[in-house]
Structures are given as C-alpha cells and as structure tokens.
C-alpha cells in the first residue's frame, strides 16, 4: 500500500504525534466504511523509559506531546508520588492546575483554528491562532518555555508564579474571555460553519460509551465523563467548574464543547490564582522510588490520559505505560465515517470528521486511501488534494486517477 507522506513542520507546530492512515471505502460520493492504520511515529518511549531515571523520564514524558506536555509530566509525577506515598505542597497543586488549564486553553484554541481551516474558513483560523499566541506568551512567562515546559517535577513544581506575573495572567484571561465569547457567537450563528458541521461526524452516545471514547469527543455525545470532576487531582477538588456536555453528537457539538471548556478553563485559572495558598512549591522526595505501582490520571485537552508506573526499588521505572487520549478516540473514527441508513458521510467531510476528535494535526497531510466498492479500484489522495477538489467546486469524479 503506497502512501504519500507530506509532513509540514512549522514554528507553530511543535507536535508531531500520530500520523494516521485512513482507508475509506467509498461508493460514489459516500463513504461506507473506514479502516485505520497508526504507528507511523512510534518512538518506543516506554522502552526508553526503562533505561532512564524517574527524573529523566519527566522530560521524556513532556515530549510525548508538544501541545499538552504538562499533562504527561504531571501524570508520571502523580503516579510516582502515589508509589512514594507522600503528599505534595498545596501551592504546587495549584500551580500544576494553572499549568494544566493553560495547556487546555491553548490546545482548544489551536484546535478551533485547525477545524476552521479544515472547513475552509481560514479567516477564523488566523484570528484564533492570533489569540492563541497570547496564551503561549503567558505560558512562556510562567514556565520559561512555549513548549516542553519543564514545570512539573516529582514532589511539586520547579517554578513559582510571582504576584506580578499572576496579575498579568489575569489581565490576559479577561481579554481572552471576551474574544472566545465572540468566537462562540460566531460558531453558533455563522452559516458556513453550521452547514459544514451540523449532522457531520455523528457518534451516538451508546457507541461513544461502548468504544470508550474520552474527552470532548465523548462529552459532545452527551456523556459527562471528565477525569477532573470524577477523580479530582491537583487542586480540582477545591475549584468549582462545570463539566460541559452537548448532545447533538456531531462536529458542531465538539466545537461548542471545546469553546465552552475554554471559557471554563479561563475561570479555573482565575479561581486558582485567587485561592492559591502561599508556601513551598516542592517537597524533596527520594530519588530511588520504593517497590510498588501507581496510576496517574488527568484530563488532557483531548481527554483522559493515564500512566501506569511500576517501580522495583531503584531510581528507574521497571515499567512505564502511557496511554494518550487520541488512541482511545481513534476507534470512534470508523463509526463516524460509516454511512448508515439516513446518516450519509461524504468524502468532503472526511477531513473535518477526522479532525473533530482533535488528533495531533500537524501531520494531517498523510494520505487517505480510497477504495471504490463497486469497481474495487483504489487510489490515494492527500488531505490537501481532497480539499482542493472541493474548494474549486470541480466534479472530482472526472479526475479520478
């Protein structure tokens, strides 16, 4: 099976995770089935982790995802702290929460921009990414880096948030809230968006539950599954927030869940800054971790992230297992891409449907393979080819290779 690899890596795209090959089975214009093949970017991090110390692994963990790096470092630290069995200072919990939520805000804005781009609404893409940049600046101000923050460590965090930086953060949050509300208005009322997204990429509630979908994908199908609420870690037990759900189960619902969550996250950051106690930001924990096992879990922008760590009493993990949310959501893609009864999937909707689970999208230019079920003929298109076909409003069937 041939595939065209075209990977755009730009300054805005530090994440290169999970390029994916989707084989779509099409009958005329309709997609009647889809099959996935992943693994193009398997880096063997779990094996590598067994040869590094826990502290070194924190920095590897952060490189699992360039968008939500804090999440993975947090999970590994959480699992390790569970094995050691010591609590960390409360202020560190709050600082971690702020880090996690800033991650979510910029990730959701990034996704909104990409989604707008996928449906050909590039103006919105430009606007959203402009505003995301402001969040990146705040993160840089807070952690010292735009990506791979090195914020979380075992026993706490490595950087405090001084008063003047917190005030600056609050000012940015106020301005951001205004613009995000504007985007919500736009997504609700803009006809172009609604026509491209309403009733597209439907994942019914029972399918979402059966396939163990996570994050905004399952919440857009009406299931209030949010690790922050169910399994409160860091400072989520003291900060009130709403678990956002929508029940139209389509791409529009996923857009709205993410926009509403961004607004919730802005509030969580505000609350966290307001309620944050003073005190130390780090407890000194032993480098050699006692024998035991621990499970770290948090809600990443894309959904539940779970790390399982086993220690045999040395300073290196015996086993370190990571599950990122995209893997959990991938099973839903073939369901969303399968026409069934009244529900019809067109080829033009494949990119936005695939994008709606928010996979790491810097690699979307990996090809999609099409198989015509009537003739058995198959051919390969890149995502940009599909988009070009439809944007120029050409009858694409004449150009079939």
């Amino acid at each position, binding site marked *: 099976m041939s595939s065209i690899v075209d990977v755009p890596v730009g300054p805005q795209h530090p994440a290169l995770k999970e390029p994916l090959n989707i084989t779509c089975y099409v009958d005329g214009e309709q997609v009647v089935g889809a099959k996935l093949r992943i693994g193009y970017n398997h880096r063997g991090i779990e094996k590598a982790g067994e040869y590094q110390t826990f502290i070194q692994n924190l920095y590897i963990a952060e490189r699992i995802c360039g968008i939500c790096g804090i999440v993975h470092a947090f999970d590994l630290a959480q699992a390790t702290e569970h094995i050691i069995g010591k609590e960390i200072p409360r202020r560190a919990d709050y600082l971690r929460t702020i880090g996690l939520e800033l991650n979510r805000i910029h990730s959701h804005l990034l996704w909104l921009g990409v989604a707008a781009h996928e449906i050909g609404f590039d103006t919105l893409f430009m606007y959203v990414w402009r505003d995301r940049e402001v969040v990146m600046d705040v993160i840089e101000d807070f952690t010292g880096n735009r990506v791979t923050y090195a914020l979380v460590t075992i026993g706490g965090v490595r950087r405090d948030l001084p008063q003047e930086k917190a005030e600056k953060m609050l000012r940015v949050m106020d301005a951001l809230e205004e613009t995000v509300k504007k985007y919500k208005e736009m997504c609700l009322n803009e006809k172009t968006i609604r026509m491209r997204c309403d009733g597209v990429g439907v994942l019914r509630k029972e399918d979402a*539950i059966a396939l163990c979908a996570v994050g905004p994908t399952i919440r857009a199908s009406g299931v209030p*599954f949010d690790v922050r609420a169910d399994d409160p870690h860091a400072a989520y037990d003291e900060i009130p927030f709403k678990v956002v759900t929508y029940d139209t189960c389509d791409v529009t619902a996923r857009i709205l869940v993410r926009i509403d969550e961004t607004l919730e996250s802005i509030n969580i950051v505000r609350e966290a800054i307001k309620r944050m106690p003073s005190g130390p930001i780090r407890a000194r924990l032993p480098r050699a971790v006692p024998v035991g096992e621990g499970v770290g879990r948090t809600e990443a922008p894309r959904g539940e992230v779970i790390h399982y760590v086993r220690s045999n009493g040395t300073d290196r993990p015996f086993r370190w297992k990571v599950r990122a949310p995209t893997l*959990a959501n991938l*099973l839903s893609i073939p369901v969303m891409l399968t026409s069934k009864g009244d529900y019809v999937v067109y080829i033009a909707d494949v990119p936005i449907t695939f994008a709606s689970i928010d996979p790491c999208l810097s690699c979307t230019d990996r090809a999609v393979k099409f198989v015509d079920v009537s003739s058995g003929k198959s051919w390969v298109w890149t995502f940009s080819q599909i988009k070009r076909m439809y944007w120029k409003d050409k009858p694409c069937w004449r150009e079939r290779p």
Partner: protein
Amino acid sequence: MTLEEELVSKLKERFGDRILEAKVQRARRVFVTVDRSAYKDVIRFLRNDVGVTHVSTISGVDAIDHFEVIPHLSYKGIVVSVRAIVPKDKPEIDTITDVIPGALFYEKEVHEMFGIDIKGHPDLTHLELPDDWPEGLYPLRKDVKLEELFKRITKERD
C-alpha cells in the same frame, strides 16, 4: 464503607479464592489480582453487574518470572486495575473485546509488545509496530535489550 471498599468486598464475595489479592491503595485507586481463569469472569461481572463501561487502557508487564495483563477500568472516578497473571510458558489470555469493545486497540498493543496471545481477538495485526517488524521480536519483554532491538531492526531492514 467507602465506594472503593464496597467494590472490593463485592468482588471477594462473588469470586472468593479466585481473587488472589485485592487492595485499596488510596482514594480512587484499587488494585485487584485475579487468577487467569477468572480474568474474563471478573471483567464481565464488573461490566454487567457493577456497571463499569470504560476501560482506560491495558498495561502489559513482563515481571521476569511471569507476564501480567492489567486492564485499568474506570468506575465512578475509581481506577480499578485488574491484574491477571500469565505464565511465561503459555502466554495466552482471553479477549475482553466482546465484553468491552473499546479494548480492541489495547489488546493488540499487549499482543505485539509482549507476544501474549489474545484468544478470541478479532484482529491481531500490528497496531503501532511497522508491517515489516521482525517476527517473534517483542520489544517490551525484559530479555530484549535496547542494543539487540536496534541491531535486529537495522539488520532486517537493510
């Protein structure tokens, strides 16, 4: 009694000796060790009678003298890790995809990384490893060292 303890006592009551060990590590973290023969029954019980629908992932572990297959289930915010012991001379275990369809990819992963045969799994092709991956090389086994892994991959590719 907390929700975690309730869950453990329910399991012990239903399965008796077939639950080898059950402990509540801390709030919302439960670890249960079961006999391999009881593994699927426990999962089915948790799914149908307790109401667990979500499997977060399945961890495989090479514990030197045996393998472990550990599905992490999520129940009302509690992570229930059900550990099944798999002997090295007969590395196989029942699939749970017919009970929880969302386990499909995780079982494939356990299969390709540890060489544990998942009986009844619908599709045991590669998930993360490439199609031309050397036959019988299971990278997360402890006896596979990094250097050997590197050597075999580069040799067979050339």
